[in-house]
Each structure stands twice: as structure tokens, then as C-alpha cells.
């Protein structure tokens, strides 16, 4: 085969139409000279480092996302920056404010020339510079009035970020979104709420239900060593080790070694895999005795992986929980795709072998190319069979609820079946509940332990909650008057916290200190805190928009005095 040097390679026009440059195997199997270039286009190159995380599916979702930022401060704009850069479709900033010098000094997306002009317009201008393919708009209404006059406006977005808004407006907005999501087929728009004071920050997410199609688990393999599908067991049993030369023998994949050893074991142990530690040791000894030489790497790998023989293949616990959920059990024409898919999966696992579909993937292992590819093909073929069985059940479900057979795109079905282990559902609570100190907050208070790592962050949560009540009565934030009054504000916030926790006498030092730090911050926006929170908010927004990775559920406190954070579910 003639080898062309890089300098003489003919430059082919780039043919990319899709974001990733995967090519069909058919195209790839026709020899070097016919391999098309597929050099990535400018857009793919720009987004290369993120496509390696969320792939083209994630990017497509991102490019359809419309994000609303309410409150145009440094924290909110930092969050937007991290969303404009990876390429959301559109953002709107809603704020009636004019730019002050204090705004400019904290917000990178303003300039001294912005002073006196609309802050939303100015920030939109500077944020848009970051990515020419993103659309930006400013809206200068007062959020509270707009919520009353044009609630539909808010419902036109994919995701809303509220940065340091008046507490009452936040609740008004949260109620609107929660109510909208309660109607059948209504939009379930995630709301991310930010509050910061000096070194302290809080991020909360309100949504009714969020589905994760790919949590990106560490492993997606379903090797089924204990319960091999028939073709795998047959293949493992059909090999004649004795006729192999030393090279072949030392290159049998460990999956085969274990499937075969387990199959032989079951034959002589009433169909059971090794149970006791004696049996497990015996199993390993038997395996070791098959070695032809001391240094056969494939056997060393098999011995190291033998625990997988007695870790039972089954429907993962988290998945079982999902299958038992009401929204999955009772599907209708209005159900989300994921609920219908899970419903079909419930039927799928109700019949033998009572296992989720086989994944087509296989980890790398010491093996010859042919043995490995042959094994890989067994898993791929089984995946195709499982997929067909699943699809038949799915069609039946769709028929039952009165949906067309192609109601769920084939790509979505396949990615679901391929990765059922990476599916997740998060159920949210209304923000109002936690603001009113109900439910989980009371449990957290009852279990408060100042020795626990998260104690300070919890104290800060209470301090922020109390400060919002302080705001409601004083129309100003604690710690915003000259410093001699800081102590007075702190004491008042302490009293509010005491009312919330219900313990007047034994008030933990940690709570006093946490309140002290929150009040000291005076609800100011320090650029580093803003950047940190902006990063966290954008990261979670990307997860929510792409339905990949597991988002925050539902509150995180960031304490940058001690460079720590803690999560809570309220």
C-alpha cells in the first residue's frame, strides 16, 4: 500500500454536516485511499473540548436552549458567560436598572462607559461578543410587575436564572413555574435561584421532575458472567483449550475464561454459582489450574475479575425504584417519553431472564484481536436482539395509550436501551416549601450536629433564610448599614434563626459565626464569589439542558471563607 506523506495528502473539502465526525464502518472499510477526510469544520473545532464531554446530542440540546437571566449582576452574568461560550441558542437579561459604578467594579461584562445606561443592554452587548452564534436580548421591565402583566413571557424559556432578586419576587416566579408544570403537558421549566453575601453563596434549583438520559456512569458494561445469554455460554463452552498453542491459550479473553469456568461450576453445583468463601477460593484454584504457564496475563486478569461471577446480574436498585413510580406505572398519551420507555422496560424485565437489555460494550482485555472482536460481536448481537424485544413491547405500550408507533424517535429508543444503567429521574419540591421552613428543613434542624463537616454551611443556609425575613420587614439586607450597626443586625438575624430552629437557650457557636459572616458580607457581590457561583450555576444549567450528568438536587451552600460547600435537599 503506497503511503502518502502528509505534505502530499490531497486536501479534500470538509463534508461535515453533523457535529461529531463519526463515520460508518462501511465507509471506513474500503482502504486508505478511499477514506474520506472528515476534517472537522470550524464549529466542531471551536466546540471540540466540550463535545468530548456531552457529544453531539448534548450540543444539539444546548443549541436549542433559551435562557432567561433575571437580575443583571456579576453572579448572573458570570453564569451567562459560561453558557454563551458553549453555545446556547438565546439569552435574555431582564432588568430595569441603570448601571452604577459599583456594578461596573464587580461585573466584567460592563465598562465604565456603561455607567448610567441600561445595565441589561450593556451586559447583553458584552456577553454577545463571546460567541457570534448566540442571540442575546435585553428586557427592561421590572420583574415583579412583568410577572403580573405578562406571565407567558417567562414560560417561553428553557431555563430561568434568578440572581439576587427580591425574595418576594423569587417566590412569585417560583410559584408561577411550579403551577405551570402541574398542568398536563405544561412546561417544566427549571428555575435556578442565586443568593450571595460576601464569601457566602447559595444556589437552589426548583423543578418538578428532571430526567437524566445519561448520568455518564463509570461503566456501562453488562457482562452477565453469572447469567450468560445462550450464545455467550455456547461460545465459551465450545472452545477447545487443549488444541491451542501457548499464544492462543494466553490470549483467551478473561470474560470467556470466567463464563466457561462458571458454567462448568454450575453444572456440578446444582446450577448455583460459588456461594461460600471456601467455594470462591476453590473456584479460583480451579481456574488457576487451567494455566499452561505461570505468566499467562489473561488468567491473571480473570482471577482479578472473578468476583464478578458472584456479584449477581440484576436490575439495579435505582432503576427498580424508577420502575415502581406512579408516573411510570400509569402511562398515558400525555406521559413523557422517558416514562413510556421505563414502562416498557418494566414489562421487559418482568419476563426471563429478568435483566435489563445487554449493553453492546465490552472493556478492553488481554486478548488476540480475533477473539476479542468475536466476543464483542456476541454482545452486539445480543444487544440487537434485546433491542428488538424491547421495541416490540414498546410498540404495544404505545398502542395501548393511543400513541403512534413512531412517537418516540428511534435514536432516543436506542440510546435508552444501550444505557439503561445511566438513566435517572429527579423529583423536585416547590421552593416555597423550603422558604416557609417546612418539611425537610425541620428534619435537618432536628438532626443538626455541629461536629459534622456541613454544620457551618447549614448555619449559613439558616442565616440566609433569616436574612430574607429580615429584608421583608426592613426593606434592606442585614449588614448594609455602617459597620457599627453590623452587630445589631446580626443579633436580629440570630433572633429570627432562633425562631426557626425553636431553641432559644442553647444556641450553637457555629450558628452565631455563620450568621456573623453572612451579615458581614452585607449581601454584596464579591467578584470571586460571583465567579465561583457563576461556574456552579452554569454547570448545573448545562446538565439540566442536556439531560446529561446528575444535577444538583436541590440546594448547595458555598462557603468561600473555608473553601467548602455542602448540599441539602429541602
Amino acid at each position, binding site marked *: 500500500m503506497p503511503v502518502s506523506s502528509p505534505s502530499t495528502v490531497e486536501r479534500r473539502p470538509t463534508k461535515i454536516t453533523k457535529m461529531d465526525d463519526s463515520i460508518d464502518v462501511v465507509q471506513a472499510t474500503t482502504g486508505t485511499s478511499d477514506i474520506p477526510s472528515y476534517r472537522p469544520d470550524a464549529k466542531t473545532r471551536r466546540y471540540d473540548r466540550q463535545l468530548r464531554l456531552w457529544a453531539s446530542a448534548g450540543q444539539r440540546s444546548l443549541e436549542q436552549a433559551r435562557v432567561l437571566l433575571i437580575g443583571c449582576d456579576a453572579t448572573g452574568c458570570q453564569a451567562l458567560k459560561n453558557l454563551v461560550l458553549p453555545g446556547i441558542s438565546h439569552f435574555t437579561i431582564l432588568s430595569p436598572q441603570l448601571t452604577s459604578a459599583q456594578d461596573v467594579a464587580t461585573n466584567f461584562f460592563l465598562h465604565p462607559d456603561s455607567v448610567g445606561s441600561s445595565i441589561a443592554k450593556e451586559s447583553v452587548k458584552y456577553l454577545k461578543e463571546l460567541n457570534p452564534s448566540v442571540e442575546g436580548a435585553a428586557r427592561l421591565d421590572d420583574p415583579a410587575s412583568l410577572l403580573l402583566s405578562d406571565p407567558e413571557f417567562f414560560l417561553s424559556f428553557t431555563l430561568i436564572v434568578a440572581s439576587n432578586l427580591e425574595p418576594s419576587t423569587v417566590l412569585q416566579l417560583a410559584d408561577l413555574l411550579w403551577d405551570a408544570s402541574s398542568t398536563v403537558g405544561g412546561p417544566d421549566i427549571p428555575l435556578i435561584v442565586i443568593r450571595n453575601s460576601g464569601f457566602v453563596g447559595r444556589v437552589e434549583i426548583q423543578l418538578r421532575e428532571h430526567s437524566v438520559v445519561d448520568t455518564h456512569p463509570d461503566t456501562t458494561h453488562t457482562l452477565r458472567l453469572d447469567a450468560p445469554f445462550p450464545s455467550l455460554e455456547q461460545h465459551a463452552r465450545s472452545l477447545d483449550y487443549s488444541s491451542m*498453542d*501457548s*499464544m492462543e491459550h*494466553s*490470549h483467551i479473553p478473561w470474560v470467556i475464561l470466567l463464563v466457561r469456568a462458571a458454567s462448568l461450576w454450575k453444572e456440578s453445583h446444582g446450577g448455583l454459582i460459588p456461594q461460600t468463601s471456601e467455594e470462591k477460593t476453590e473456584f479460583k484454584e480451579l481456574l488457576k489450574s487451567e494455566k499452561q*504457564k505461570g*505468566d*499467562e*496475563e489473561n488468567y491473571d486478569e480473570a482471577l482479578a475479575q472473578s468476583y464478578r461471577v458472584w456479584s449477581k446480574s440484576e436490575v439495579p436498585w435505582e432503576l427498580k425504584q424508577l420502575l415502581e413510580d406512579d408516573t411510570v406505572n400509569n402511562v398515558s398519551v400525555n406521559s413523557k417519553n422517558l416514562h413510556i420507555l421505563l414502562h416498557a422496560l418494566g414489562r421487559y424485565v418482568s419476563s426471563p431472564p429478568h435483566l435489563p437489555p445487554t449493553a453492546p460494550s465490552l472493556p478492553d482485555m488481554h486478548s488476540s484481536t480475533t477473539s476479542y472482536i468475536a466476543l464483542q460481536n456476541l454482545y452486539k448481537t445480543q444487544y440487537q436482539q434485546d433491542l428488538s424485544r424491547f421495541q416490540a413491547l414498546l410498540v404495544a405500550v404505545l398502542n395501548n395509550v393511543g400513541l403512534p408507533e413512531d412517537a418516540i424517535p428511534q435514536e432516543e429508543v436506542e440510546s435508552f436501551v444501550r444505557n439503561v444503567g445511566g438513566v435517572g429521574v429527579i423529583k423536585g419540591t416547590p421552593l416555597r416549601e423550603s422558604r416557609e421552613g417546612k418539611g425537610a428543613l425541620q428534619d435537618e434542624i432536628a438532626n443538626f450536629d455541629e461536629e459534622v463537616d456541613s454544620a457551618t454551611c447549614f448555619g449559613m443556609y439558616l442565616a440566609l433564610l433569616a436574612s430574607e425575613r429580615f429584608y421583608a420587614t426592613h426593606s434592606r439586607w442585614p449588614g448594609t448599614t455602617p459597620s457599627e450597626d453590623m452587630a445589631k443586625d446580626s443579633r436580629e438575624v440570630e433572633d429570627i434563626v432562633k425562631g426557626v430552629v425553636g431553641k432559644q437557650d442553647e444556641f450553637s457557636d457555629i450558628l452565631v459565626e455563620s450568621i456573623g459572616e453572612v451579615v458581614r458580607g452585607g449581601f454584596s457581590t464579591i467578584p470571586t464569589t460571583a465567579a465561583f457561583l457563576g461556574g456552579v450555576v452554569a454547570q448545573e444549567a448545562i446538565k439540566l439542558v442536556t439531560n446529561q450528568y446528575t444535577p444538583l438536587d436541590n440546594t448547595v451552600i458555598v462557603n468561600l471563607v473555608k473553601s467548602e460547600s455542602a448540599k441539602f435537599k429541602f
Partner: protein
Amino acid sequence: MLALLPTTAYLHPINTVTLSHRRHRPQLWSVKKNEEAAAKKKPKMTAAQLRVQKDLTELELPSTMTTQFPDLADVLNFTLTITPDEGIYKGGVFKFTFAINANYPHEPPKVRCVQKIYHPNLDLEGNVCLNILREDWKPVLNLSSVMIGIQYLFLEPNPDDPLNKDAAEDLRRNREAFIQNVKTSMRGGSVRGETFDRVLQA
């Protein structure tokens, strides 16, 4: 403020424990503070160089291995000569270059055979198939482990994970014929149409 305070002033109380653990400095001679010292460029050995010096000076090489440093100013590049005194490759003189980069020991040394030799675990370009040179490298290993590993290849060539498939096949099929091939190749002869470098001891 920062510039006005002594070192310890950087330390918040949480750090004072660490400070008290600060190592005692041996007072050899008068420890003088050289006012100008900091102003001058004072080249120091890099962490990689230090580690290589440690590895090399602690080497306990058998008589079958010697090192050659073409340039003492550059201890990161040298040659290892192996003269096996037993086994199939006895009588040969085999030379390997070691190239160590600034990331050592995070990254393994790069080792190549400078001669073209007939061996199941070496290819005709001098690449060496030794696990600790690639997938099994760990920073706790050292140059000694690598040298011992390479010598082992001459005592026990591994025909089951070959780099030179032909040589490996010869060894698996007929050990005697393989030994003859090794002898031929070491004399500078041809095996399977491929001419090898003469590597016999003078």
C-alpha cells in the same frame, strides 16, 4: 500587610501546627544570609534530574550491564550495554538508549535498542515490548527496575506477546531452530530474508 510581615504572618492559626512541624535545618557551617543570592539566577537541578541521580547512584548493576554517558552534563540521556552471560543471547553485546524527560518519574524513560536484532520482544526499529516501559509504569519504579526488566528479556524471551511476530513464531514452533536463528542473527547474518546487525563480543 503582606510585604511588611515576616513569613509566619501568612499563617492563620490553622496553619501553625504545620509550621511547628517544619523540618530542622542542620547547622553545618555558619548559615549566612546572602543578601544578593536571591537576585542572581541560581540554576538548580530539576526534580527529574535529582531523581535520576538517586536512581543511578543507587544502581547495583550486575557485571552483565554497564552504562555509558556520552555527556556528563546530561544525565537524562545515556546508553545501557547488556552482555548476557547465560541463555540464548549469551555472547552478544546489546545497546539501549535511555531518554528521560522532565516529567520523570511521572512518565517512564523512553528506551530503544540501537541495533537491529532478532528477538520476539523487540522490533526491527528497536522498540522494546516491556510492560513497565508503558502500561505498567509507576513512579515508584526506577531505572534499576527497567534495566533488570530488559535484561530479563534476553534470558526469557516471551513468544506469547510478541513484537517481532516471526521470531516469536519460530520460538513457539521450534526452540532449537530459533536458537540457531539467534546465533545467525548475532553474527550479522540473515534470518527469513532480514539481515541483522552483528552484535558479538569482540
